């Protein structure tokens, strides 16, 4: 049986101390794909953040997690919550993104058959990330990996 347990422990989100947490993401392993974003959503919900803010964070963390699983060797997703913002960073070791403008185009995808059969590969993930974050930065070094930083305002 697949162990699909939450990675979370109860959180105490005070406005003074920024909450920080890092999650490891294994490339190529679709069995656990989604567990990090599900955990991030639970943490933010527990903090009592507004529903629309939690929703946006869930979408951007999911899409970046799936991209690491789909395209990279391994990666880390870092969650930081302070009094003003939620920051989600996705840092991976992998091939990187040779042409970021092209990758950002809706519909562009290099997903292989195996990935497409599971319903990925619409070429919408990075667009979703851009649309659902208030600030979005993406950079990449070819042959090294990709770096994404999403900021969502807490209002």
């Amino acid at each position, binding site marked *: *049986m*697949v162990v*699909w*347990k939450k990675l979370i422990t109860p959180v105490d989100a005070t406005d003074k101390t920024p909450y920080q947490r890092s999650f490891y993401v294994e490339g190529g392993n*679709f*069995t656990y*794909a*989604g*567990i990090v*974003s*599900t955990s991030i*959503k639970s943490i933010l919900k527990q903090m009592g953040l507004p*529903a629309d803010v939690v*929703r946006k964070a*869930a*979408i951007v963390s*999911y*899409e970046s997690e*799936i991209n690491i699983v789909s395209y990279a060797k391994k990666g880390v997703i870092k969650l930081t919550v302070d009094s003003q913002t939620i920051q989600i960073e996705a840092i991976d070791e992998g091939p990187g993104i040779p042409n970021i403008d092209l990758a950002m185009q809706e519909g562009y995808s290099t997903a292989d058959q195996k990935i497409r*059969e*599971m*319903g*990925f*590969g*619409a*070429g*919408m*993930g990075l*667009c*979703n990330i851009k*649309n*659902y974050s208030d600030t979005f930065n993406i950079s990449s070094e070819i042959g090294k990996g990709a770096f994404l930083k999403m900021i969502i305002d807490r209002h």
Partner: protein
Amino acid sequence: MNIETIIKELNLKLRSATGDLKKNISGGYTGDLLSDVMANSHEGDIWITRQVHQNIVAVASLKDHAGIILINSCEPAKDTLERAAQENIPIMVSDLSAFELSGKVYDLLAKKD
């Protein structure tokens, strides 16, 4: 309209009886591309899809869907059911196509609120 009623009305087979079967269904979304569903579905939706892989559970959970209906008698994978139990997502199976099922769900939601 809740999961229990929709099961009765549309003759669905319940494959994962987890989650709240009395929870209100506020809308629906039909799609097989996970990023499309992530972007365009809403909380409380019933999600109609042919994807049986366990990743559908994470999507439904992240989007707070009321449940998932698989079309064309597609059966959920074993891993999908295990994950559904842990994430409290009801999963049902219909023998109708996505087109027919979506039409019927749409009518039901329009009729009874």
